[in-house]
């Protein structure tokens, strides 16, 4: 191997060597952390809500000029009308739903006296049609009965005798898996609620990192909230979604005109809900991807540029080496090895930088810890990129003829 003389030669070209090594180091540090961000965001994007998201329609409703006390009867009329529509499988009314962006959150415990909360959770107020409409999978217990459903003023709400919870919350409260039939206390209530059902998964309405540690903690309350605001969820038969996107709000207006269904985000398929909920995550992932691509391209271009310059500068020297017996392969391997050594220096510094940068991001921006696998993958990727980038100028160098040694510069 020619490592010793290559290192000796590099010592005499410190500026170019250090600049490229630094560029590689910074690229590695930024790309590793950007990849973590991309992974976090794409994990967000693909996180299941627990619902069957196809053929699901949401309609945001706001009563205008209506007495709040009249909203239960108006709501019942709406639901009956929606459920009676051709192409509708079921419909329900709720204060919120997964990915909506707004809703209720509260603390939950298994004893009334315990001050410290065991978990944080969201509350979905809905009825016995919620499971069927949302497409939630019941993995234990039962659904609400119609006689357990009632309307309640949100300001007067305390608790309910029964609740259905998500499995994530059930396991958090009762890690031994015995949650069914047990009680919980939420919203500081002193009366217990018995867990009568557990759904496999039910995501909270928020997608932000602040809700990350209770993203799948949800309680379904068998109460419909009175008041001016609420959302209808409509499950349609396959192929009926597009038609009902127009027909459902039209029917609601036909039933009662004293309402506003906003033009923007008023009527949305769940695919649209998901897309809008994760718009910023998707944007960030794309931005980070572009940053990575640009950085890698700049680094590759830097390596190509520096090596091409060095090949041009050392043309005579290459000719001398060829005259002294170097084969084309020897010259090729000289430049590949030289680049590998610079790259190795760069990735060693870059790995330290990547970890340091990540620790700083973790402490300031709630970012995930950088896995060493990412660093290792980044190191390999950058070394391969370097070798790929240097290949063309190195091959050009290997084609310098030995007679170049006799030519004057």
């Amino acid at each position, binding site marked *: 191997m*020619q490592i*010793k*003389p290559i290192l*000796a*030669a590099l010592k*005499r*070209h410190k500026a170019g060597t250090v600049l490229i090594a630094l560029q590689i180091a910074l690229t590695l540090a930024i790309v590793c952390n950007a990849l973590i961000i991309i992974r976090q965001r794409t994990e967000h994007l693909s996180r299941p809500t627990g619902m069957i998201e196809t053929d699901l329609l949401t309609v945001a409703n706001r009563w205008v000029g209506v007495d709040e006390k009249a909203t239960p009867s108006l709501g019942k009329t709406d639901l009956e009308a929606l459920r009676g529509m051709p192409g509708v499988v079921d419909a329900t009314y709720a204060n919120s739903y997964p990915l909506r962006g707004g809703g209720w959150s509260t603390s939950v415990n298994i004893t009334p006296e315990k001050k410290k909360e065991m978990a944080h959770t969201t509350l979905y107020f809905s009825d016995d049609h919620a499971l069927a409409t949302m497409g939630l999978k019941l993995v234990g217990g039962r659904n609400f009965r119609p006689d357990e459903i009632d309307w309640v003023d949100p300001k007067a709400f305390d608790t309910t005798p029964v609740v259905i919870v998500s499995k994530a919350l059930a396991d958090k409260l009762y890690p031994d898996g015995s949650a069914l039939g047990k009680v919980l206390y939420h919203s500081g209530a002193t009366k217990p609620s018995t867990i009568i059902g557990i759904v496999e998964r039910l995501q909270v309405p928020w997608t932000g990192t602040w809700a990350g540690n209770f993203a799948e903690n949800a309680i379904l309350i068998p109460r419909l909230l009175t008041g001016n605001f609420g959302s209808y969820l409509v499950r349609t038969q396959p192929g009926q979604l597009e038609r009902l996107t127009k027909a459902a709000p039209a029917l609601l207006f036909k039933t009662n005109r004293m309402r506003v269904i906003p033009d923007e985000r008023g009527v949305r398929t769940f695919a649209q809900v998901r897309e809008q909920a994760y718009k910023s995550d998707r944007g960030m992932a794309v931005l980070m991807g572009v940053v990575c691509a640009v950085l890698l391209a700049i680094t590759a271009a830097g390596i190509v540029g520096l090596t091409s310059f060095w090949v041009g500068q050392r043309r*005579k*020297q290459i000719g*001398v*080496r*060829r*005259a*002294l*017996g*170097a*084969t*084309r*392969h*020897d010259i090729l391997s000289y430049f590949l090895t030289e680049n590998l050594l610079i790259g190795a220096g760069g990735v060693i510094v870059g790995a330290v930088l990547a970890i340091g940068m990540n620790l700083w991001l973790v402490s300031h921006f709630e970012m995930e810890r950088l896995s060493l696998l990412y660093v290792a993958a980044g190191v390999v990727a950058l070394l391969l990129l370097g070798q790929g980038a240097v290949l063309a100028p190195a091959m050009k160098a290997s084609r310098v*003829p*030995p*007679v170049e*040694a*006799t030519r*004057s510069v």
Partner: protein
Amino acid sequence: MLKMTHLSKVYRTEVVETYALRDFNIDVKEGEFVAVTGPSGSGKTTFLTIAGLLETFTGGHYHLDGIEVSQLNDNARSKIRNEKIGFIFQAFNLIPDLNVYDNVEVPLRYRGMKAAERKQRIMDALERVGLASRAKHYPAELSGGQQQRVAIARALAGSPRLLLADEPTGNLDTQMARGVMELLEEIHREGATIVMVTHDPELAARAQRNVHIIDGQVVDLSEEPRFHAHNARVADA
């Protein structure tokens, strides 16, 4: 050792063919010290580059140490350059980024020689040219004469069968040139075959035999060598 018969070298462009060498014949015996002279553009350097396998030729035959080289591929030519030929260039052609030791080591590394043997050969070669104490110096820290001595050490370290020198004193002052020439003569006395291209008739006169080239052809050969060559390799001396 070196035999070219009816050798030609043509440089072709779209409109013109230029003969650098034409019907070129030369036979250098083992242990000879041959000076090749001629005016500028006569083909001296072309002869040397072909003799050193730095360039291919267009026609004719060239046998080096009994091997017909025209059919050899690039790798085989590199191997012969590395093992059988030592080059001494007018501009020294040391690698400026490497110190004296590493410069002398270059051809030995390409031979795949083990480190211990390399070290032994390098130090022997540097001792031979009187520069062992400068092993850690860089070329820029040496005088022209010293640089050429390093180049000679580099050529000698590989124990070549043939030394090719292209104006070895061309960039040196008279005193340094004399020193280098004396070194070459000493190396020759120890058995090396040397072919030296030079403009300088005084230096050429110190060689065993003179070959004069004009317009790519050998026009004048000394009939008798002035002393007999030794049939030995440089390193065996």
